């Protein structure tokens, strides 16, 4: 779907006319990310992170495919082949540091993209499908990042594989056989590394496929905007090209500056030193911690310390960790407020900022050792996390009185005088 005033693709060169009649691929691109896609004119910089996330996916696939040409997926050579890439492959250090820091950058950008969705209510009708596909992408990213982290076969790689597959072992009845099936053995070994390498290569292309669905679903209603008010007239939108290509384009430069600062000047700042020690099944590291982008969920996992009713503490932790993300799937139906943007929802906004601080605290605790007082604080923070989504959001959305919304997008940009002037000009 598009707005009636959207530009139509009109190829001028005879070759493009010929091409368009037989395979309208240029038309598809024009309507998707070119002059044919009309976008609200009032998007702020939080709307840049989707484009940047796509850019990160490209960085990861390009560096990853080249790394795979030099990497050996066998426990006897994995660690050494990683060092071979770092030392002997031309520009290998740049590929490998670029890929490791690229994963961190991808998550940073996607977290900001998700934050945008939460704050501005991008998940609400008619955009639920975009949101659902987005949560699927996030889950696929987590699986891909976890399996990628195992590949260098350092200490943290090995013990991460041990801990995460161990989670499945806590499921009643089928847990142990399931864990052994996932690992291809009783403990992480060559079979595990081989399948993780295979899946780590496959999943990014699955992500790419879901990203295409995500963008397709976006183009049905069109982009949301900071006011949450739907597009009403031509003056509310601008064509994606050149306006948002120009805006997204320069923020790619900004992104590259931050990403490159990590890559070239502090490539190990986000990693853990223990992963430069080769995997040793006989020696457990003092603190097993995942990469920073998993910390909030790791804190939730570890906050269940006691059996409750018929539930084992470990099983509760696993259920809660998955539930912490699965609950996002239900958000469009838990939040019943017709107002999208938190800007006009005074009560919801307060709880939302508490949630943001809560998740940051969980993030800190997930990286801290599993001892007091950290466990007590993560128990409190996890309680708020679940109460927020499952109790507070449904109740607030039905009792809240939202602030008045602007009449239109144009009015929110130009003020009511400016909008009237534009109206008068016709």
């Amino acid at each position: 779907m598009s707005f009636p005033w959207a530009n139509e693709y009109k190829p001028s060169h005879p070759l493009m006319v010929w091409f368009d009649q037989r395979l309208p691929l240029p038309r598809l691109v024009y309507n998707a990310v070119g002059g044919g896609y009309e976008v609200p004119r009032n998007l702020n910089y939080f709307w840049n992170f989707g484009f940047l996330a796509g850019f990160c996916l490209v960085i990861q696939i390009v560096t990853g495919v080249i790394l795979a040409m030099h990497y050996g997926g066998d426990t006897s050579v994995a660690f050494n082949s990683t060092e071979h890439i770092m030392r002997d492959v031309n520009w290998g250090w740049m590929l490998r540091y670029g890929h490791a820091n690229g994963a961190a950058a991808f998550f940073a950008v996607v977290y900001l993209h998700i934050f945008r969705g939460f704050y501005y209510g991008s998940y609400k009708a008619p955009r639920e499908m975009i949101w659902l596909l987005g949560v699927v992408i996030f889950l696929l990213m987590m699986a891909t990042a976890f399996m990628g982290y195992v590949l260098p076969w350092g200490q943290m790689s090995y013990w991460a594989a041990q801990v995460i597959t161990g989670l499945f072992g806590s499921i009643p009845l089928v847990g142990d056989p399931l864990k052994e099936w996932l690992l291809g053995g009783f403990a992480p070994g060559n079979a595990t590394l081989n399948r993780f390498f295979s899946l780590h290569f496959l999943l990014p292309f699955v992500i790419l496929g879901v990203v295409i669905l995500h963008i397709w679903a976006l183009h049905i209603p069109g982009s949301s905007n900071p006011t949450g008010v739907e597009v009403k007239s031509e003056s509310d939108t601008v064509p994606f090209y050149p306006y948002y290509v120009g805006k997204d384009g320069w923020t790619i430069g900004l992104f590259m500056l931050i990403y490159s600062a990590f890559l070239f000047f502090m490539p190990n700042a986000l990693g853990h030193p223990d992963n430069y020690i080769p995997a040793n099944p006989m020696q457990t590291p003092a603190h097993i911690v995942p990469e920073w982008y998993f910390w909030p969920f790791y804190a939730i996992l570890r906050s269940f310390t006691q059996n409750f009713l018929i539930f084992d503490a470990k099983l509760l932790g696993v259920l809660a960790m998955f539930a912490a993300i699965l609950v996002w799937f239900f958000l469009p139906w838990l939040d019943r407020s017709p107002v999208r943007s938190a800007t006009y929802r005074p009560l919801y906004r307060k709880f939302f900022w508490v949630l943001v601080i809560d998740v940051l605290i969980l993030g800190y605790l997930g990286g801290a050792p599993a001892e007091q007082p950290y466990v007590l604080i993560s128990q409190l923070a996890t309680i708020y996390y679940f109460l927020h989504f499952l109790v507070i959001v449904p109740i607030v959305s039905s009792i809240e009185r939202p602030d008045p919304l602007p009449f239109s997008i144009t009015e929110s940009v130009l003020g009511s005088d400016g909008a009237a002037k534009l109206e008068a000009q016709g």
Partner: protein
Amino acid sequence: MIRIISILTGLFFAAALLWSLLWDTIQLGKDGLPHTVEKAFVKHDLKKLDLASDGVFGKFDEAQLQRGFAVYQNVCASCHSLKHVSYRSLAALGYNEAEVKAIAAKATINAADPLTGEFKDRPGQPSDKFPPVVYAGAGHPPDLSLITKARHGGAAYVYSLLTGYANQAGYKNHEGKELLKEFPDAKTPDGLHFNPYFANLNIAMAPPLTAEGQVTYSDGTPATVDQMAKDVAAFLVWTAEPELEQRHQTGFVWMGFMLFATVLGYMSYRNIWADKKGH
């Protein structure tokens, strides 16, 4: 309906967590905060170490790397291997081709004879990597190729550890608490050595750098224990990150280009949007 299920699920998780919270609080009331000898006495404030390779413009100091290599060869190499490093890469320390060949030739490499396929000892070549080191004693001396990347604190940790051995009797932490009075059971076992920078305070490695002049420096730098520890830490930064100089130089050029491109991009963005902003 979905909201009722949702609220009940939320309350279930909250109840399970409150249950854990309750028990953990009772436990905490009984035990207090964890108080271990490692928590109270391991030193995390490492000694300050300034290296030429630090910072955005950091480059290696070749003379220091050569001194550090001498310390490795004469002291560390009797127990610790350097298996990821090739002899040919020693050219980066400022050695010429003949010197690299001479250094490699001093090593004995067990490799397949290209004519017979038999494994035999032969003198090392520049294309060889540093050979494995067989350690006869107790413990597992780690390979040192990546050690500055594999420990929190990196080179400063190596320097602090090498110069940080102390006498456990009467040892006090920065709060003035005496270790053996606080934890009488934490006496360093026989065969281990007390070092407050080591993760569990007791390290198997005996103090390796003990006397001035233990290594003879060809450039005339006085070989104090402190100097040798600094030099070998600098050398181990190179073994862990041989790409450091190239990385810094590439990064500097790249950041300059990106800054320029970003400014151009911003200007064209402003230009494109000029007719849509304002009144």
